[in-house]
């Protein structure tokens, strides 16, 4: 069985820093793959390589068995790959609903001008993340961090992706919002959506993923089922070593 999305031998340097070092993995259709690792491990950069926002120094990306390493980002989105950003990037001057509408726009000048715009698909997405009429007319500047994340997710869902790369979706969300989002993601998963999820909140990640891969200092250090990976010595070392130097409780999810 060939992977839906596959990364092979990808490396990316920023100056002297190796952010991603010879990383390979595949995501099967319908699978939900967790990507974890301490801060600065190269998770976000890996997403950027998959999306074509960063060109890898070496290695290749394949989607449905076809190489897409040289395909520009917007084409990859049209093929069915989309991501959310760790730092939400809403269009500040337009309201929430308009933001979501940009996500569903066709990439054709003519269709943008001439087609009537049915709005029910956008409203469905809005509702699925818990946005109603009131939020629809709000500007991104008026939203909380949690709402900004939901907007980022809604806008990305509007591109109708086959595989969704989620970067730190739970950061800044309340317990209630995390539960709501988990329901939404599981619902979509049942409908066949494929995921890759980066999260520091391991406890919230656990029910969502079938499998996890772990990065540390740019390299893949472990791969397997959630609990098995968490018991892995190298993984504990990577997390605890990091927690000790930076005094961050990144392992709290494993408790």
């Amino acid at each position, binding site marked *: 069985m060939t992977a839906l999305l596959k990364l092979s031998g990808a490396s990316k340097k920023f100056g002297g820093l190796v952010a991603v070092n010879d990383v390979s993995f595949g995501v099967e259709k319908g699978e939900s793959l967790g990507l974890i690792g301490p801060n600065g491990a190269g998770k976000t950069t890996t997403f950027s390589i998959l999306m074509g*926002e960063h060109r890898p120094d070496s290695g290749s990306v394949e989607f449905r068995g076809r190489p897409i390493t040289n395909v520009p980002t917007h084409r990859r*989105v049209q093929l069915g790959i989309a991501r959310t950003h760790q730092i939400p990037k*809403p269009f500040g*001057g337009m309201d929430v609903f308009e933001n979501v*509408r940009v996500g569903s*726009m066709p*990439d054709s*000048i003519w269709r943008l001008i001439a087609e009537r715009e049915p709005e029910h698909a956008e409203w469905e997405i809005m509702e699925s993340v818990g946005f109603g009429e009131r939020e629809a007319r709000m500007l991104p500047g008026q939203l909380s961090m949690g709402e900004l994340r939901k907007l980022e997710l809604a806008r990305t869902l509007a591109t109708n992706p086959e595989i969704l790369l989620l970067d730190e979706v739970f950061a800044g969300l309340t317990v209630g919002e995390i539960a709501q989002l988990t329901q939404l993601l599981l619902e979509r998963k049942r409908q066949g959506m494929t995921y890759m999820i980066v999260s520091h909140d391991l406890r919230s990640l656990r029910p969502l993923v079938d499998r996890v891969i772990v990065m540390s200092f740019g390299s893949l250090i472990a791969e397997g089922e959630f609990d098995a990976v968490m018991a892995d010595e190298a993984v504990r070392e990577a997390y605890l070593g990091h927690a000790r130097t930076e005094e961050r409780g990144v392992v709290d999810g494993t408790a």
Partner: protein
Amino acid sequence: MPKSRFHRSLLYWLAFGAFMCLIPLVASTGVVRLLIFANFLAIFAMSWDIISGRTGYISFGHPFLIGIAGYTTAILTRHLDAPLFVSIPLAVLATLVGGTLFFLPALRIRGTYFALVTLAFMELMYQLTQVIAPKITGGTRGLSGLKTIILGAVPNYYLTFCVMFAIAFCLWLITRTRIGTALAAIRMDEEAVTALGLSTLKLKLFAFGASAAVAGIGGALYVHYIGSIAPRALFDINFLFTILVAALLGGSGTIAGPILGAYFLTFLLEYLRPYLPGAERYFIYGAITLVVYVLEPRGLHSILERAYGKLSPIVARGLAK
């Protein structure tokens, strides 16, 4: 709800058109001639705003686009004796080609650098008209004695107003569709637009093409209205800033804004002329623009809209009594 808003806006456009058509019946020839210039300035300001107001790519080179159109039709009619109905469309076409050239830097650079490169385009064109083939371009003195389309202030007023109005109406119809939203999204965050699966290249190319076409129409008509083309007045920083200020003062990112700004600025400059005959005028309008900008960054358009919002309930209540 959106439908009724559409109809209301349509009504405003019609009212504006009807009002402007009545003006020559009451206004003096002097005012009518001023309005002709205002119509041209409105066309140029709308053209500037399609690129700069919508997508945020600030152009300092619009005189370059206007110049391509002006010189093309001037040369074709002057040296080849081409009729206007041939030379003007060709001039617009040439401007479209020039607009694509103009567009190339936008593939790689943005912000201040883009603005500076477009400024360089304008300067380059100025030098070219002087150095390369001055026999054809008329060198420093330019070309004069060009054909005019029609004679008389009032016919020219109607001509320029109809062209300006048609352009404005078309742009309004286009930009109120999703393409307007997409262009605005580019201004706010170009990477995010790409990440949502849209080709920003295509969208920018569209905006640049539309801007060039409008500048081309305005530029070609302009030289046949004044009957000459003078490089020093055309490729002039003051001319450039008049366009820019008209759009910003009126309210960029809208259609009515640049028109409003162009009318306001034309009359302002004219009424300042007796007191400030020289270039000091430009300081004054710089200051006024600054004040308006501080009060309301979205320009006169927005100030009027708000005033209307406050007034209309009062008027409605008055009428109900």
